[in-house]
């Protein structure tokens, strides 16, 4: 019964979001403030209305109202209340509703915070963001509705789903639900969808401002970028955390010893991250130098389209099979929406092309401007390679009828060299000056990091001479780390020598004086840490597999494992567990017991492999129980991975969050260091002012 209220609030939210889209467009176009205010009020209502729908789904999950098809699909009595509540985003209907809800929340927040400041842009900000919201809420209402109920025709073998009672059908409430896909019952998968959706929807805000700037013709100024800078950073960090949580989930749950498989769903999320990261950088170019204005527009349009495209791929499964496209109206709806918004934004951009001229000029190819442009090109090239590899199976099937796979080796081979150059640029570019960089000064700046990194790479390379291919990667990582640390050291030294501060205080003040710059460097360090983890994974990973009888051992690298036996017991959340006991030795020294398991989820009839992991800062020893022989259970098959440096990936993720916090933390007082150089155009403006005589 209460679920009907959820449906009502959902329908109201849809109507209000459609109304807000058109009212704001009309109000902005005809310059009728009353209409715009009305649109704003409608927008502010959408969020509480959707909150109502979300709450009711959450409540139904908690109360296990299995008369709703969605609840019966993703929850079950065996699941804990916490897990049941997280099932809100465990299936398609709930996910899309959740997506719309976060989107509406962001838009409401923008209206509350920015209404006074950006009156001129607001009508179109509302229009663009509410158009997106209306599309998603519309998808929830018409295509993938979580309030659909189960019905049963007397004598029919299968159940029917419909919102309202079909003639002749009886309401049907199963005793128990199917329960959440066992693979999703992990903290990574509980945290991954919300963070990802916040990231995805967060990018809609800068996009909406950008479009508003284009529509109003105020795109020449950079206000839209300044207004949305922090939003963009927040969206970016959530998307980043979403990616890392997804990787962590894959590592812990999927049981193949890795964290990134270049799966279409992963790529779908990675692409907006790539263009979003490029956007974050190109915006700096515009703020500091008034350049790349058109390019920012291109990037934010791409990022927006790719976030929708990502949701499309994830939700329709179109890449694994063309046939998934036509299975429901979801595929065509997304396809049309992406096509229309993408083409619409691009034509808008071209109509304003002439107004987006660069204000400054370049003096030298060796300059920070050039580095920024090259970096943006690399991000886009990687995005293209990933996009192309992701959609190519589809194209191949459509063009030649042959199904093909574009697997990990393709992505590693194509994007690897591009990432190498990109990371190198990340180390060098901050050393470049704007306008032009004297080659000699640059040489001096990178001399010590370069020598130091050569020494480290030589020593490291000697220790790992059996993997010569890893040496360039190790050199790169050490060079970039040293280059960044040198930047900090220079900053601290300059402060402490000129002000006589102690170096620690200098370091703290360095952060507070230029949050973006030094926070940015922390982010760069985080990226290098992740790169280190990827090098470990790519070059030093070892694996072996063997079947052991009780008491037998298997060895890999310096480690050996003794199989002590299997043990079966009923676990929580409706599963049967079979756990292996392994004793891990390094050389002859006993380290610890490892217990890789296989959990068999009874209702879903699905096994989940839970690794037994011994984790150190240097490497993970990752053991999987693959199976056992017959009923006697005295022999079992194991696969064992040594994953060196993998923990740097997670540590790097923490560094990214930390760096973003430093960069985006609201400063107490907006006090900037005076770093400007008088420019003729500024001077002329000042001189033209009459003397005020103070």
């Amino acid at each position, binding site marked *: 019964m209460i679920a009907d209220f959820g449906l009502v609030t959902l329908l109201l939210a849809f109507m209000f979001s459609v109304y807000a889209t058109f009212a704001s467009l009309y109000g902005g176009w005809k310059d009728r403030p009353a209409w715009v205010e009305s649109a704003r009020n409608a927008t502010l209502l959408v969020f509480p209305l959707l909150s109502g729908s979300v709450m009711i789904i959450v409540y139904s999950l908690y109360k296990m109202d299995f008369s709703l098809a969605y609840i019966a699909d993703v929850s079950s009595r065996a699941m804990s209340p916490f897990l049941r509540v997280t099932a809100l985003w465990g299936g398609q209907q709930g996910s899309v509703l959740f997506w719309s809800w976060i989107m509406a929340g962001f838009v409401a927040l923008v209206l509350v915070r920015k209404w006074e400041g950006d009156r001129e842009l607001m009508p179109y900000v509302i229009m663009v963001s509410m158009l997106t919201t209306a599309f998603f809420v519309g998808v929830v209402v018409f295509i993938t509705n979580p309030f659909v109920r189960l019905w049963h025709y007397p004598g029919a073998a299968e159940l029917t789903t419909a919102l309202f009672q079909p003639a002749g059908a009886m309401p049907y409430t199963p005793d128990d639900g199917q329960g959440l896909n066992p693979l999703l019952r992990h903290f990574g998968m509980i945290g991954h969808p919300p963070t990802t959706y916040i990231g995805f929807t967060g990018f809609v805000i800068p996009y909406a401002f950008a479009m508003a700037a284009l529509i109003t013709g105020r795109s020449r100024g950079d206000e839209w970028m300044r207004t949305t800078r922090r939003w963009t950073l927040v969206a970016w960090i959530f998307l980043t955390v979403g990616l890392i949580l997804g990787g962590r989930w894959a590592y812990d749950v999927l*049981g*193949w*010893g890795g964290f990134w*498989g270049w*799966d*279409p769903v992963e790529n779908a999320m990675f692409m907006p991250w790539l263009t979003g990261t490029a956007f974050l950088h190109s915006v700096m170019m515009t703020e500091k130098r008034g*350049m790349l204005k058109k390019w920012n527009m291109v990037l934010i349009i791409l990022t927006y389209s790719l976030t929708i495209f990502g949701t499309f791929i994830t939700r329709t*499964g179109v890449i*694994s*099979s063309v046939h998934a496209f036509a299975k429901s109206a979801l595929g065509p709806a997304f396809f049309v929406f992406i096509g229309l918004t993408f083409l619409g934004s691009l034509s808008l951009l071209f109509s304003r092309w002439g107004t987006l001229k*660069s204000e*400054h*000029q*370049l*003096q030298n*190819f060796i300059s920070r*401007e*050039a580095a920024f*442009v*090259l970096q943006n*090109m*690399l991000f*886009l*090239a990687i995005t*293209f*390679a990933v996009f*192309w*590899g992701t959609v*190519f199976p589809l194209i*191949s099937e459509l*063009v*030649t009828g*042959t*199904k*093909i*796979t*574009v*697997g*990990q*080796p*393709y992505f590693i*081979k*194509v994007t690897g060299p*591009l990432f190498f150059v990109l990371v190198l640029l990340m180390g060098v570019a901050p050393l470049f000056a704007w306008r032009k960089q004297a080659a000699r000064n640059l040489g001096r700046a990178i001399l010590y990091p370069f020598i130091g990194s050569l020494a480290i790479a030589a020593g490291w390379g000697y220790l790992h001479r059996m993997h010569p291919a890893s040496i360039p990667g190790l050199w790169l990582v050490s060079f970039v780390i040293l280059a960044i640390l040198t930047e900090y050291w220079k900053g601290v030294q300059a402060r402490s020598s000129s002000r006589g501060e102690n170096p620690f205080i200098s370091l703290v003040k360095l952060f507070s004086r230029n949050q973006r710059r030094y926070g940015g460097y922390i982010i760069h360090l985080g990226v290098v840490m992740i790169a280190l983890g990827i090098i470990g994974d790519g070059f030093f990973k070892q*694996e*072996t*597999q*063997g*079947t052991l009888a009780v008491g037998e051992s298997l060895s890999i690298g310096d480690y050996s494992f003794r199989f002590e036996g299997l043990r079966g017991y009923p676990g929580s959340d409706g599963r049967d567990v079979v756990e292996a006991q392994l004793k891990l030795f390094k050389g002859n020294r006993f380290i610890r017991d490892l217990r890789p398991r296989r959990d068999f989820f009874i209702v879903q009839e699905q096994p989940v*492999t839970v690794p037994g992991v011994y984790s150190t800062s240097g490497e993970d020893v990752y053991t999987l129980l693959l199976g056992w022989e017959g009923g006697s259970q005295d022999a079992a*098959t194991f696969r064992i991975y040594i994953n060196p440096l993998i923990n740097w990936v997670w540590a790097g993720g923490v560094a990214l969050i930390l760096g973003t916090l430093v960069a985006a933390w609201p400063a107490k007082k907006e*006090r900037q260091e*005076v770093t*400007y150089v*008088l420019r*003729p155009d500024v*001077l*002329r403006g*000042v*001189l033209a002012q009459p003397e005020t005589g103070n």
Partner: protein
Amino acid sequence: MRPEISRAVSFIHIFLVTITALSLAFSLVTTQTGLAQSDTPRRPSADEVNAIAKKLYCPVCPNTPLDVCETKACEDWRAQIRDQLAAGWSEEQILNYFVEQYGERVLAEPMRSGFTSFVWILPLIGVVLGLVIVYQVLKGWQGKRDLEAVQIPVEDQIPAETLARIEKELREID
């Protein structure tokens, strides 16, 4: 005994001895290899099987490398690889066999021939094109230097004390 006969006898003798020795040696060699075969039948290790399975994708499940795929079908395919290795097939032969049986989609790394080669070519073209565009853009920006040359003298005409005052006032505004 006539010398010819004795020579013929000794020749036959030598011939026989040689034949015997050769056949003995031959049989010895063959039995030895036969022994070697029955002693240690070449049973490929799971690691050898996985090394090849890694280069293949499960032909039925979406986007799962064969070495980590857990379905029964994949288990059978891995067993097939093991048998093929045991029969002395090379890696290439095994990969070709799977492509013939299940189509191109089993290869983790797309082929570099036919229509599939576009998957490799286009990103390369993209990068080259990107570099050209970057060069053009930077060149274009450099071309604007003339504008600056006109503007610089404006700065020079301002007396030093005025500049200092403006600097000071700008700082106060901040």
